[in-house]
């Protein structure tokens, strides 16, 4: 029954960045050996804090960045910069900031029609009609067709970005923080719209967000990232009801829902986020982990399959111990 539309296997992306004055360049493993499948029709939520590599992963899926090693397959075909247009027909992004994701010098109509133009749609006579149809569908009045982005509100701009992503009927949409730049009341409108469109077009979403409440609401399956690795993967119910990895537990504990009287939880997360250039040894989470054990700092944790997947020493002894994939530093 598995029908993956995106298959990532052992994908790594390394940036060479300057470590400081006179210290030359050092590798930063933004994405460090990720294997992940996105199944057709699901909404896969990817959560994690800034710097965990979720945006880098999204850019690789979009073909904007080449993996340093490992392979990414889209509908069975290898993703690479060479097949940009083919990737574009299958997969489209929606970005976080609707203020910078639209070219201020182009009219709304031109922005929405751009995919048809670029992907050499054979029937230019229908472009205008199709643009107006999709505007109608995302809830944009067609009279803004000749307006410019600066004349629209944040929510409307995000609708324009959604219309542009959907006009050529992609199969997968990668939503990178689609609502975090929007006000609460507008955020809910956009989330509702994304839900509706998913039904209408049979879309698969990859939803990248740091807002766990949004991910819980939208996603059918969730992957938690920490320092370039996926540390836990499970379907949404399992993950939110019974989080396994201590990091997932801390993340969930940090969600502040508008329920008075509960106070601010103490997440027991120690030190600050580590420097990704110089990640901690063994399990990269061990300096912040409340349940740290002796061997956590020495040995990378194995991936334990238990319906979902979790990378943690706590669960290693029970179900079939696998050899750690990563070389420990």
């Amino acid at each position, binding site marked *: 029954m598995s029908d993956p539309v995106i298959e990532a296997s052992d994908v790594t992306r390394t940036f060479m960045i300057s470590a400081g004055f006179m210290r030359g360049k050092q590798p930063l493993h933004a994405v460090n050996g990720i294997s992940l499948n996105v199944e057709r029709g699901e909404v896969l939520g990817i959560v994690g*804090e*800034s710097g965990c590599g979720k945006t880098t992963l999204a850019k690789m899926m979009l073909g904007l960045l080449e993996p340093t090693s490992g392979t990414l397959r889209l509908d069975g075909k290898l993703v690479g910069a060479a097949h940009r247009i083919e990737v574009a027909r299958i997969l489209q992004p929606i970005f976080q900031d609707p203020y910078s994701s639209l070219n201020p010098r182009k009219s709304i109509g031109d922005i929405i029609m751009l995919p048809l133009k670029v992907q050499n749609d054979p029937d230019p006579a229908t472009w205008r009609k199709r643009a107006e149809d999709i505007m109608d569908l995302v809830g944009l009045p067609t009279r803004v067709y000749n307006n410019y982005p600066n004349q629209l*509100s944040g*929510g409307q701009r995000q609708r324009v970005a959604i219309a542009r992503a959907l006009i050529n009927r992609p199969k997968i949409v990668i939503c990178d923080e689609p609502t975090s730049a929007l*006000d*609460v*009341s507008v*955020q*809910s*409108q956009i*989330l*509702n719209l994304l*839900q509706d469109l998913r039904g209408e077009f049979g879309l698969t979403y990859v939803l990248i967000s*740091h*807002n*766990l*409440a*949004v991910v*819980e*609401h*939208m996603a059918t399956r969730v992957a938690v990232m920490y320092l370039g690795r996926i540390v836990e993967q499970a379907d*949404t119910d399992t993950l*939110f009801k019974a989080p396994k990895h201590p990091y997932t537990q*801390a*993340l*969930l*504990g*940090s*969600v*502040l*829902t*508008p*329920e*008075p*009287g*509960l*106070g*601010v*939880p*103490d*997440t027991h*997360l120690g030190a*600050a*986020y580590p420097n990704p250039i110089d990640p901690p040894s063994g399990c990269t989470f061990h300096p912040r982990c409340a349940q740290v054990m002796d061997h956590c700092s020495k040995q990378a944790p194995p991936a334990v399959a238990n319906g979902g997947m979790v990378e943690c020493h706590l669960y290693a002894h029970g179900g079939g111990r696998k050899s750690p994939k990563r070389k420990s530093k």
Partner: protein
Amino acid sequence: MTKQILEIENLCVDIDVPSGVLRAVQNISFTVAKGETLSIVGESGCGKSITALSLMNLLPKSAKRSADKLTLDGRDLRDLNEREMSDLRGDAMAMIFQEPMTSLNPAYTIGNQLEEAMLRHRNVSTAEARDRAVFLLEKVGITAARSRLGQYPHQLSGGLRQRVMIAMSLMCEPALILADEPTTALDVTIQAQILHLLAELRHEFDSSLILITHDLGIVARVADRVAVMYAGEFVETGTTEQVFNAPSHPYTQGLLRCIPIPGKTKRGAHLGAIPGIVPNLVGRIEGCHFASRCPYADDACRTGDVALRPSFEKSHEYRCVLSPEICAANLKSGAAA
């Protein structure tokens, strides 16, 4: 009756813009008691940040502030000149800004900036100021505090910088701390840590806190009392329990329906939405400011001013023509829909 630290009556801020006068804050009144946390919550453009800046008298030149009463610890702030005001800032009242990267000066060490905050206002030696800085850095959870004094802001992570900002705001034991979106730029786990810290420190130092945010989750967990702001006005005020458990104003009710709550909101179901956009605040708005987006609005809402009125309990007020009973019924029927 506890002592009121801040008392404000009919605070207005008008800003000159090319198209006219933008009435950013219109007749808001509130008090903050000693040790209390008041949260002003609202969406972008509602005037909550302008309110904070107007209290610190840090408004842009084009803005004019007026108030019938504006006292901090019994002292009238309205007639203070710039010099007297800057004596107060960082001393009796301190502010924590949203972006810790830009609110610390990158050219000075942490120690310099912390000590400066105290040397400016208190007659103390540098050594005493440094001891106080170390004491507070440890209080805000920074390890190896003494060695951190020589570090520059860019050497610290965002969460650490915000801790330094909090320590700095506490240097002179201010009566009132204004925190404008203190955790918006931070990750969720760091946000929880910082808020946890703020709550602890507030008990320890017994400072009053005005927390300005757009995040209802933070408000519900941190604040004692809440003021919901919309289009320059307070539309609902009350204790956190009153406002969150029995929201009366249609705007507050709508906002709370917009937010998915894990475990409570049905997954994938439609969230509530508030149609329309915030009205333009340039010029005068006739009638209720929320009328253009309100599902219950009729012609009566669009004429004349709508005043704040008490709900079932006296400390809970809202600005609507509908009676408390109708509002409570709306809350139920809205949740069912």
